[in-house]
């Protein structure tokens, strides 16, 4: 990714991984949560070569895997990459070892949340929370409310204001949610998780 002016677009990528704070149990934990054996990865970097969003990440996908292999927990959990990854599976499709990168990223995000790690991309986290809350409330996503609540959560009520207006004019955004009738079905799926985490 070297530009014509000779500058590296990737900017501040670290030259080496700080090995000072490794936690051996971390690799096992991420393997368990994701159902992936990260040690299958031999760092061929095919994933990062094909990743459409690598240039916006602090660590490239292969480097995230490396951090997990080596147990460098804090760096992995507080990276922006685990939030910027959208799980498009472009990397997994090309991976010679068939590593399910999206599952590893899911495991890392969820671990970051449960362990209270610093969230490098709070906007993305806030957005996910609003989508999940909407599903919890209605059983389906209500996009207008998600965007309004998300804007409030990040104290920027007028973000995308013009776009929102145009979408309303075009009737792309419904004022009222489309709802599931039997909502107890949906609520029990969210309660289930709470019960399990209290027990654990």
């Amino acid at each position, binding site marked *: 990714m070297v530009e014509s002016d000779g500058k590296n677009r990737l900017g501040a990528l670290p030259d080496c991984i700080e090995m000072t704070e490794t936690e051996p149990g971390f690799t096992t934990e991420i393997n368990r949560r994701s159902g992936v054996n990260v040690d299958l990865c031999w760092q061929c970097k095919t994933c990062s070569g094909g990743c459409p969003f690598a240039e916006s990440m602090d660590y490239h996908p292969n480097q995230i895997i490396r951090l997990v292999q080596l147990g460098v927990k804090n760096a992995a959990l507080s990276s922006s990459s685990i939030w910027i990854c959208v799980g498009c599976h472009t990397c997994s499709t090309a991976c010679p070892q068939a590593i399910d990168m999206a599952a590893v990223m899911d495991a890392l995000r969820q671990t970051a949340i449960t362990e209270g790690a610093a969230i490098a991309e709070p906007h993305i986290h806030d957005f996910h929370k609003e989508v999940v809350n909407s599903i919890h409330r209605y*059983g389906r996503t209500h*996009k207008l409310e998600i965007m309004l609540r998300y804007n409030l959560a990040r104290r920027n009520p007028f973000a995308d204001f013009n776009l929102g207006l145009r979408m309303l004019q075009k009737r792309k955004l419904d004022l009222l949610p489309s709802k599931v009738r039997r909502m107890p079905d949906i609520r029990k799926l969210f309660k289930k998780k709470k019960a399990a985490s209290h027990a654990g």
Partner: protein
Amino acid sequence: MPDKKFLEFSYFPGCSLETTAKENNRSLYTFCERHNIALKELDDWNCCGSSSTHSIDHDPAKWLPTRNLALAPPGRPLMAACPNCYMRLKLAHMILNQNGDDREEYKRLWGRDFDPDLRIITFFELLSDLAEAGAFETHKPGLKGMRVAAYYGCMLARPPVMRHERNFYGLMEKVLLSLGAEPLKWGYSARCCGTFLAASRPDIAARSVADIMAGAEQVRAECIVTACAMCQMNLEIRSRLPGKTPVFHFSELLALSLGIGGGKGWFRRHLIDPRPLLRARKLIG
């Protein structure tokens, strides 16, 4: 229509087609009716979980799609219109097929046995069968030589456990060709649109969208057609190029090739107005 046999599917529209992409939903129904295909919307379906749930909340992400599987009546396939909903439903079905404990939990949750034989398909599988049967040759007036860039996005990429599922790369081009359009070769047909980054990090998504839209302009595409309703929206809302290439849902082009679409209100809902192009091509009045 050559396909005289009456086909029936359970149908999962998903949140996008239910709300922001109603024009996708309606044109899909219209197309299916013309081919004697009945879509029976899954009664009281719920969100598949979307990208956000599996990102941050493992358990609801795992179980949300299973409720939809339980709602599907036996004996007919379950068809999803959205590639991502399809993937969530299919993955849930694969996990249940592999895990006895999960099947027990499914029974406890939904009060019925898991159906290991439930067939889950995407709209593209149906299209592929119709293409095989030559069903598109009869579409009149066709698409009149319109230059179309077919955009698949990440529909082509799937998690490793789904590697051996059918892949439909090239299907849109094949169908477009039989509809009398000119499908174009271009470099961005599988470049991800950015999904939720369009909302939460629009700066990043806009770069991806700009590459895709510029790629379409490079090959002088008159329009882009997408396989996924969310891609369609992201390309429209995050495009910052001065030239406005319209973006269609594939179902809209299918209906247009049958001479249906003008006066239906579908194209009024687009943020990049496709009507000037459609009028110039005499596809609407």
